[in-house]
């Protein structure tokens, strides 16, 4: 009996780089996909330079806060840190496609959980504007969680919710 070679019949799985809460991932490997899973009130910012094909994804948690801790936990300090990291890998923020997603209102938490999502989305837009940059596309707000995937090869940003998939 001829042994079956399972590995040969399996499709190649593209490498995934995951941005956990307060983390960023940046790559210039065209085979890589960058992912931020399960965004609720958190906001993801994707940057992709079409000329150098460098992609970056940041998973922000809150609009403002003290420095230290996870690199992009807070948008006020983390936005610049993300763009600097993107530039170090060869991405050019001024030529990059910038896309945002997240900022949903998930739970009515006493301390203002419903407001955090909206404030996060506003903070990303305002932070970029203060640097002379703007979002090319976004999917903010609503009441659904999202997972976002940035394809480094194409700059396509998939936004998946429990019931829907859209492309930015």
């Amino acid at each position, binding site marked *: 009996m001829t042994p079956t070679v399972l590995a040969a019949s399996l499709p190649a799985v593209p490498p995934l780089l995951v941005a956990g809460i307060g983390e960023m991932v940046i790559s210039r490997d065209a085979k890589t996909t960058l992912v931020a899973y399960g965004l*609720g009130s958190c906001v993801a910012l994707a940057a992709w330079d079409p000329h150098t094909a460098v992609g970056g994804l940041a998973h922000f948690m*809150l609009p403002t806060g003290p420095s230290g801790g996870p690199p992009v936990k807070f948008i006020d300090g983390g936005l610049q840190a993300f763009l600097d990291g993107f530039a170090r890998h060869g991405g050019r923020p001024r030529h990059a496609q910038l896309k945002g997603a997240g900022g949903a209102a998930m739970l009515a938490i006493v301390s203002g959980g419903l407001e955090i999502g909206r404030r996060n989305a506003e903070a990303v837009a305002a932070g970029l504007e203060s640097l002379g940059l703007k979002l090319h596309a976004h999917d903010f707000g609503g009441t659904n969680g999202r997972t976002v995937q940035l394809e480094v090869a194409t700059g396509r940003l998939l936004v998946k919710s429990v019931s829907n998939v859209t492309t930015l």
Partner: protein
Amino acid sequence: MASLTAAEETVLSHTFGDGLTRAADALAEMTGHQIIVAAPSVRLCSASDVIAMAGGPEAIVVGIYLGIGGSLKGHALLMLPPVGAHHLARILIDGVAEPADDDDLVDPLVFDPLATSALQEVGNVMISAFLNELGMHLAEPVMPSVPQAIVEMAGAILDAVLVDLSMEGDRLLAARAAFIDGDRAIEGTLLVLPRPESLGTLLEVVGVDRL
């Protein structure tokens, strides 16, 4: 909330363990099923660790959330796999001991208002039982909020809770246990996340003096 001593961790684990057992007893009483508490743990961890405890950020769960106020502040979340949540709702509403045939479910992510209400009540009863156990040590009452039920990615549900807890630091105290019955008709995870300022209160009531 930088660290816990070994003694503090032991005492907190014991107290939370009692609370998780009370929650399991309450579920057993509601359903008539024998419920086992599996893998209880109490530890200081990161936001990412808490999401991993919930089954990973993309796992779709039925989450029943209660805020905790009063002398102890924080958040409690019961998470159930959607098909298991339907089984549990059937047991409570129809008294059916055997799980329904999964083929009956047109869309496991859709719950009618009666099933939603039954599941909210499960969260309410289990979390209240947990808090009653802790509350026995406290002079002031602990007050859970009205339960909210949501079908979502676990990471997205936890986001709002973690945001509230993470404004002051990067380490969280998390108590977690899984609940299962013999034929696995019922399984779920209960997470209790006290606010950082409640740690001192907790340690005080369970008899540990912090230096």
